[in-house]
């Protein structure tokens, strides 16, 4: 059955890809089309709220191209981490889009849905049974923290995707999955080299980012008994041994080791060489299966409700003394908030960032110079939506607060009306743990439907 060819249209659905390159890929007879649908890369909001980072319209337009490509190639189409975060709700959201498109395209298809979301009670039970272990670093886990989380997902690996492939489904909509598992699942099933199956999957998980032309998106990776060969599908993209090898560095804390459900791969002794101008051959990665099967958990909880205000200072005296100004203002405001609203400082956080000075790097900034103007970003985060009222209380002082008592009242620049922006509910990551499982499917469910 090998070699096995996996066509990867791009690093993530929603980012766009070159349609001509996709068609080239289809002509090259792939055995499966695999695309990632999510990540924690944009922060905790998506998982916390259980929503997609990308617009439905963008997802639908790209998914349509892939459903057409799948029909032409007559092979399975797999998406992992549906709707950015891979919650059950986002798998159903993707199902809804797929059903709409199946009707529009007049396609009859069998769909497998892989659910990866975890019940709080299941997590609590496994925590009590000492089946959950922290990675480094990890928030301190307890029942209360589990209870506070809005969504918890487990990252599926190759085993769960293989279960879906075995159902004979033409489209697989998977919840949270490791970026690599959607690509490695089929070659692993068909007897390709295990280390190379994971290594090749890692190389192409961001699409054409492993090539000279990242935005072209589409790459093909071919797996066999001894290694893999990667080739970009756009005529304007090339893979070199360096662009391919360098991808192991990207977003990886360790450039040689990658942990996956069921073990880890080691690419220390891999060899990379160009077969021709476009294609790179890689061999030598090793797969080390672990004794105990485990999957990674992700969870998010509400960090609070946030409101922000922005004021611009152009007056030289205030620009030069902006730190002193906000220190003095902060002290004054905390007193006012306490006296007028009866809210203690422990119930909210008030932070000033100086845009133009060090708002990006904070205390790490080495290169502080007096700029021509400074934007003062005021952030209020509270346990409940009182942050809006606090922002309104702050508003007039942000506009007029003087550095000294015996000066004419200053007025700074507000760029917006209303001045404050409610950012609503904000979230934080609350898990960096692994869950041990006796059977890979113990924390996952598959549902099949035909449309």
């Amino acid at each position, binding site marked *: 059955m090998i070699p096995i060819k996996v066509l990867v249209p791009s690093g993530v659905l929603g980012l766009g890809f070159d349609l001509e390159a996709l068609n080239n890929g289809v002509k090259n007879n792939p055995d499966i089309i695999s695309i990632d649908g999510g990540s*924690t*890369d*944009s*922060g*905790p*909001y998506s998982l916390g709220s259980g929503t997609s980072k990308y617009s439905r319209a963008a997802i639908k337009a790209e998914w349509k191209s892939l459903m057409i490509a799948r029909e032409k190639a007559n092979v399975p189409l797999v998406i992992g981490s549906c709707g950015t975060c891979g919650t059950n709700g986002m798998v159903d959201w993707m199902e809804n889009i797929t059903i709409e498109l199946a009707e529009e395209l007049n396609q009859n298809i069998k769909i497998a849905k892989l659910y990866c979301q975890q019940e709080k009670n299941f997590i609590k039970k496994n925590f009590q049974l000492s089946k959950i272990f922290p*990675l*480094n*670093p*990890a*928030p301190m886990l307890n029942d209360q923290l589990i209870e506070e989380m809005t969504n918890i997902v487990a990252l599926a690996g190759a085993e769960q995707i293989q279960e879906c492939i075995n159902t004979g489904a033409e489209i697989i909509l998977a919840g949270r999955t490791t970026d690599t598992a959607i690509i490695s699942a089929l070659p692993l099933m068909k007897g390709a080299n295990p280390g190379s199956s994971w290594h090749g999957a890692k190389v192409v998980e961001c699409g054409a980012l492993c090539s000279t032309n990242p935005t072209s998106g589409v790459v093909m990776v071919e797996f066999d008994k001894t290694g893999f060969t990667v080739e970009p599908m756009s005529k304007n993209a090339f893979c070199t041994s*360096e662009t391919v*090898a*360098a991808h192991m*560095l*990207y*977003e*990886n*804390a*360790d*450039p*040689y080791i990658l942990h996956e459900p069921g073990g880890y791969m080691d690419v220390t002794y891999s060899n990379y060489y160009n077969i021709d101008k476009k294609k790179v051959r890689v061999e030598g990665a090793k797969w080390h299966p672990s004794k105990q099967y485990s999957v990674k958990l992700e969870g998010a909880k509400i*960090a*609070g409700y*946030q409101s922000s205000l922005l004021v611009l200072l152009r007056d030289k005296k205030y620009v030069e003394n902006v730190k002193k100004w906000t220190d003095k203002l902060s002290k004054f405001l905390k007193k006012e908030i306490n006296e007028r609203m009866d809210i203690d400082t422990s119930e909210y*956080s008030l*932070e000033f*960032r100086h845009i133009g000075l060090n*708002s*990006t*790097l*904070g*205390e*790490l900034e*080495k*290169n502080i110079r007096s700029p021509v103007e400074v934007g003062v970003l005021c*952030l209020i*985060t509270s346990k409940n939506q009182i942050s809006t009222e606090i922002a309104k209380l702050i508003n007039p002082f942000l506009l007029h607060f003087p550095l000294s008592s015996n000066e004419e009242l200053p007025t700074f620049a507000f760029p917006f009306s209303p001045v404050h922006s409610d950012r609503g509910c*904000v*979230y*934080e*990551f609350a898990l*960096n743990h692994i869950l041990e499982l006796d059977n890979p499917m113990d924390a996952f469910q598959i549902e099949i439907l035909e449309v």
Partner: protein
Amino acid sequence: MLTLGEKVRKIRSKNAGPFWITIDIFCGNKKIYKEVCNKLTNSEIINLLMISEQQLKRFEIDDLNVIKFSFPRKIIQGDIFDRDMHGAQLAVLLSEMKF
């Protein structure tokens, strides 16, 4: 005196999951790679990033002429006090270092 950014081909930084940051220094050729490997000390990096020695992982990747540093984030990605979710601007600190 040159800065490290002027000396090497490229320096980039990026979040590696929500809990880690990783920095890649692409030296461009073997000569510069050897020079940077020898001269750039862990204590300089620790001071620059305000992290402890035990937190810093250093990799010297001969085949790619790359020096890589990884360390856990002091502030988890997307926390209310996070200033740079992807940590990609942190590379500037190394770029502007005198070398």
